[in-house]
């Protein structure tokens, strides 16, 4: 597909993350560290999951329920890890806040906390995109293209890049929702993140059907936009709250 197409696919999957990185994350070194540690955590979770599932592989290719089971167990495991990640972050936040108090500097603002959550989510999303899309992209730089029988309208690389972009969005913003949910004890926010993750995972199984990607991928983008909208609403609410608080107290 030539170098132009290869770069195109890479940008479709990871371009927005690159933009986010350049405009938000790269300004603060702490956020870069958060992205890296979150990426590492996600990869470790994959390694552990593959270790657990190794005895059952390779899965039979013509029944779908082993794959459903795989998705469900992986999502549960990763959500559990997300909660642990939050706990570690909370500990860190307390340390940073007490340090700030000692040197008479302001504590972490809401925007700082949101940015850390965003960085954590971006780490997860980038790891997913690199692992599931970018690693398969090397042949795309050669002259040939590839169409999968079950999704014969679009080249394989394009579909995987599009799915990758959806998952980057979902991971990035659901981390923000999750952190706020755990911090405020908001049940809705706490539950919606695993549900979204599970739904997204199960929707990829639709691609197993012949021409299933025509239904599966738009639905996946529906989920991604739901995440984005919910996150936006939540952040806007919190900002307004904080502003009212500070104007009330100040």
């Amino acid at each position, binding site marked *: 597909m030539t170098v132009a197409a290869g770069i195109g696919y890479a940008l479709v999957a990871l*371009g927005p993350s690159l933009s986010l990185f350049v405009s938000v994350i790269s300004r603060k070194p702490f956020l870069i560290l958060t992205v890296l540690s979150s990426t590492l955590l996600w990869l470790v979770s994959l390694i552990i999951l593959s270790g657990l599932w190794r005895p059952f592989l390779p899965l039979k290719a013509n029944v779908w329920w082993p794959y459903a089971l795989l998705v469900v167990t992986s999502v549960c495991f990763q959500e559990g890890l997300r909660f642990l990640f939050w706990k570690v972050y909370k500990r860190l936040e307390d340390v940073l806040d007490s340090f700030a108090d000692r040197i008479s500097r302001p504590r972490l603002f809401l925007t700082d906390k949101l940015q850390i959550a965003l960085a954590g989510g971006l780490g997860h999303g980038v790891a997913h995109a690199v692992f599931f899309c970018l690693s398969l992209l090397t042949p795309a730089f050669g002259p040939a293209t590839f169409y999968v029988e079950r999704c014969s309208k679009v080249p394989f690389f394009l579909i995987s890049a599009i799915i990758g972009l959806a998952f980057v969005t979902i991971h990035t913003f659901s981390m923000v929702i999750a952190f706020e949910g755990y911090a405020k004890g908001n049940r809705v926010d706490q539950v919606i993140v695993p549900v979204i993750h599970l739904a997204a995972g199960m929707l990829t199984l639709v691609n197993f059907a012949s021409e299933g990607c025509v239904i599966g991928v738009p639905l996946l983008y529906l989920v991604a936009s739901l995440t984005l909208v919910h996150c936006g609403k939540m952040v806007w609410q919190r900002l307004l709250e904080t502003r009212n608080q500070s104007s009330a107290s100040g």
Partner: protein
Amino acid sequence: MAMGLTRLVAIAFALLLVSILPLHVSLAGEITSIESVPDLQKLMYVAVDGYPCVRLLNLSGEIGCSNPGLNKVVAPIIKLKDIKDSDQQHTILVTADEMEDFFTRVSSDVSFASKIGGVLVESGSSFQHKLTGFSPDKKFPQAQFSPYENVDYKWNSAASSIMWKNYNFPVYLLSESGISAVQEILSKKKMKHETYTTDVAEFNMVMETTKAGTHNSEACLQEGTCLPLGGYSVWSSLPPISVSSSNKRKPIVLTVASMDSASFFRDKSFGADSPISGLVALLGAVDALSRVDGFDNLKKQLVFLVLTGETWGYLGSRRFLHELDLHSDAVAGLTDTSIETVLELGSVGKGLSGGVNTFFAHKTRVSSVTNMTVDALKIAQDSLASMKIKILSADSANPGIPPSSLMAFMKKNPQTSAVVLEDFDTKFVNKFYHSHLDDLSNINSSSVVAAASVVARTLYILASDNKDTSNSALGSIHVNASFVEELLTCLLACEPGLSCNLVKDYISPTNTCPGNYAGVILGEPSSKPYLGYVGDVSRFLWNFLADKTSVQKGNTTSVCSKGVCSKSDEVCIKAESNKEGACVVSTTRYVPAYSTRLKYNDGAWTILPQNSSDSMGMVDPVWTESNWDTIRVRVYTVQHSAYDNAVLVAGITVTTLAYIGIMATKSLITKALKQD
């Protein structure tokens, strides 16, 4: 809050249901599971199996096929019938029955030839029924070596001469698996949109002579970009000749066959009828005669000679006769006596018709010796009454002997009295002479067994000078039919091919598929060559003939390793593949086969000037084959470049839009926070 939660859970559940429902419907069908990136690459770039046509050179120019330059040829695939006028070069998919017309048209129509990027030939079994005959060779093969004037006589009626022309594009014969790979990719195209993808074939058949710009044998041999065609012929005598003994030598009855064939495609030239059927008949006869005792007491000496390089200017026979003149080591034991009779076994695989095996004896000239040979053949025929064999003399209206090694013998010495046994009279019955279709299905094994039987008894009669048919020894000479059939599957098929037990008993073959193309001669030509440079079939013949013509001294056989035996008249056989060989008393030698116009000096070949005493050397084209690195053909699908650029633009757009969105959100948030 709780309401929101339940609502969300409901939505999620609905999504789950939606996702699962269509799945029970259609999961059947092929899934080629891709487990790694190399798997993906193998699916994308389908390697196509087949046989190439390579570049051959002679003194005046080139023949055969090659990539036109240094680069791979990439061209979209199109069937021959779908060809329209267009400027772009294509890969033409040609079926076997269209091949002759296609290549004839290419040679005559320059504008048609310029549209060809590469050619893929489909020769599945479905097309072979349509073909009544196909021969890419000439009407009178190797006419320049004929000892008689009539060079326009049409021996080969199915001739098209296409293998002797020069093509400036790669040509590749698809194997069965190659055909299915190409068909699969072409059928997938019907599912996809035809507007923005094309299926292309990529040919990597770059020939070194094209790279170096050497376009004839002299230039390429000087530059070292090619090697001369040739190989190693094998001769063996029954019983073994003791070189040291001062006994008077017996006159020799020489039986000749050849082991090399050729076709348009280098590696698919089984040559079943011409000439391998003759070779197998000779080996069957040797096997039968090896079980006969008392050869020491016969009046004449039997010598069996299997030549190679005969297709390319009778290299084997010319070099053999030259070595006889030189009294060299390769022919020690043959030179101080006369070769009284020569019997050649030509094509004998198609003699069966109407339940009778008919063979024709073509004489070089009428003489007492040739009459005696034909008489012996007839006596042998009569003694084999149960096999229904008929030996007939060739039509006297024929201009002379058919194309065979005897033409070279005659040219050298017009007084040669020899007979060649063929399954045809006035023209070839082999309608697939020197084509890739002259395979096992083109011959009849019972015809070969019949020829072997009649030749074995004829040789015994000639050697014993005995005309008595009730001789019990004659009646005891039987050819082992199952041996002949097994040998045919070893030399004329890829399964089992040279990995059959019969061959593996003697050598460890380097290839399974027997390519009966002579190939190039490697290294320095000598009568004791480095065995790594000698072809599989030559090595098999040497070991086989040494085994069958050997005499056991006492009952003990000593073992040998490294091919060395202690006694001078012993040779080490079956010494390959880590086995220890056995030392047997036998006179079996290799004779190099290469043009008499070539000389090997210090690692390089030079062409000798024309010598009027070597009349055949004067008309020898001096064939060489270009060196080549890898030959590979791949088939894959390519997107149009507009699409690739569109993808790049889409990627850049998505990135930029995301950036703008993020910046907008940032400013929105800062503004929201500052409103106090």
